[in-house]
């Protein structure tokens, strides 16, 4: 049985989130999901276009909705794997459906490109929602051939799946447990992760680094304290921030966190028996090799190992001296020292 959906990949799937794309391919093959890519889609504008012009941002997103409507066959569900793309598509769809002024101005703009969108023609969903609601956890669970027993994961859902939730489909917008359940169905040990829907900093790593680093620190610090082996995400932006900026964050706070972050599709692929390499594992900056090898999953070397002994580059935590030069410290650190 094959379930067909319209698919809006978003720009990062072909760049920083290639591992998400390749692991998604494996997952779709196993679960019988057919993702039909929208032909010649354009960027959703991320969180930047709305800052310059709302009318143009809606028109930009409207083009994607119009193309999706044209391409509808069998399914009218438009799936986006990126939380930011998802929320933007959902936002324009929502405002076109509920605000006649938005609908008419977007369509007037689309006319210049020979396009039109009928509000309500497509249903916008995040990939994760489709897996949980349309495919179902039973189907996921029965496809598991290599349970991830012994792997402790922190489910990091991020902001935008449950917020703003234009259609009011999520009962809990701050502590939903659907992501926990999905990961548990793969056999992984899921820690109770309070900051599961906290912000990864979004564009703050670019425009206000100290704020961005603090938001990343809160996430990896919480995961570390809970003894998690890794964070699991469903958003390229969250993955990029926590993974690629973790080194700079460590330098900023003089910490030594080593907290890998993988996409949920990568873990699904592993549980379905796929090889790590086919799932893009190894392309993360903060290596997940050590954590995966502990549960018996081989991760091939795609580049020089972190150090000669093959250990991840995590250094042991240094003891903080009670006296010494004044160093930046968080309030809770100060308490520990005293």
């Amino acid at each position: 049985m094959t379930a067909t959906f319209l698919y809006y990949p978003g720009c990062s799937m072909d760049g920083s989130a290639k591992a998400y794309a390749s692991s998604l391919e494996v997952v779709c093959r196993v679960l019988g999901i057919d993702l039909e890519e929208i032909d010649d889609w354009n960027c959703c504008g991320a969180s930047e276009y709305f800052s310059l012009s709302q009318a143009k941002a809606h028109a930009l997103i409207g083009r994607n909705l119009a193309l999706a409507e044209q391409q509808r066959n069998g399914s009218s569900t438009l799936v986006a794997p990126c939380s930011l793309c998802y929320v933007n598509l959902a936002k324009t769809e929502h405002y076109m459906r509920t605000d006649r002024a938005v609908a008419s101005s977007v369509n007037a703009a689309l006319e210049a490109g020979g396009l039109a969108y009928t509000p309500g023609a497509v249903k916008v969903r995040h990939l994760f929602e489709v897996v949980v609601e349309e495919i179902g956890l039973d189907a996921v669970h029965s496809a598991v051939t290599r349970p991830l027993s012994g792997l402790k994961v922190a489910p990091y859902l991020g902001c935008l799946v449950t917020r703003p939730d234009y259609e009011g489909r999520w009962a809990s917008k701050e502590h939903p447990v659907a992501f926990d359940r999905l990961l548990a169905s793969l056999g992984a040990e899921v820690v109770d992760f309070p900051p599961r829907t906290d912000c990864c900093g979004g564009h703050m790593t670019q425009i206000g680094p100290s704020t961005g680093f603090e938001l990343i620190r809160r996430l990896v610090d919480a995961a570390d304290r809970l003894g998690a082996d890794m964070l699991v995400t469903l958003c390229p932006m969250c993955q990029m921030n926590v993974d690629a900026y973790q080194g700079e964050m460590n330098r900023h706070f003089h910490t030594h966190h080593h907290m890998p972050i993988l996409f949920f599709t990568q873990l699904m692929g592993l549980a379905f028996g796929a090889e790590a390499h086919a799932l893009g594992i190894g392309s993360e900056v903060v290596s997940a090799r050590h954590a995966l090898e502990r549960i018996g999953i081989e991760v091939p070397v795609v580049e020089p190992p972190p150090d000669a002994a093959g250990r991840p580059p995590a250094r042991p935590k240094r003891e903080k001296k009670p006296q010494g030069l004044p160093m930046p410290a968080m309030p809770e650190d100060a308490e520990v020292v005293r």
Partner: protein
Amino acid sequence: MPGSGHVDAPSPVREGDFLREIVAATEGDSRLGCCIQCGTCGGSCPSAADMDHTPRMLFAMIRAGLRDEVLRSSTPWMCVSCYFCAVRCPQEVHIPDVMYAVKAIATRDGVMPDSTAPDFSRTFVANIHRYGRSFEVGLAAKHYLRHYPLRLPGMAPMGIAMVTKGRMGFTPHRIRGVAGLRAILARAEELERVGAGREVSA
């Protein structure tokens, strides 16, 4: 004094004019007029520490008609759009949308806070106009060289890892329909200008 030194600028005469301008520029029903100044927004905001004003304060300033101060505030530019405030607000004010409206007005009027954020948005959007897609490498390179050159040495290991692991594409993808997309965006801009003109004259 608010607006002193800008006596020639067409500043709103009556209190509430600026509030109306913001409400009109926000899509849907912003509910900004319903704000009860409880401060739940600022208390929920992960980037409030970096803002010139908390969201609550900004809304009070909007009501007080402090147009120039509001448009120059870094607050909306530091918003990460996590929607915590939006789902917690007891009055259901559409706070992130209001922030976008304030930014769009500031952009249109060329009034910018002292922040690299507006420039980041502009570079991002320029890439969309050029290619129809975002171009991660070009965007990051341009932004860091211009605003954070001192961060570059520290970022080198990450940059090298991203390149060797094949996570950075050096050639932007241009969509086939880029001409059509530009026509759509140009029409949207035209319509927006006409719409804004109508609001002012009304």
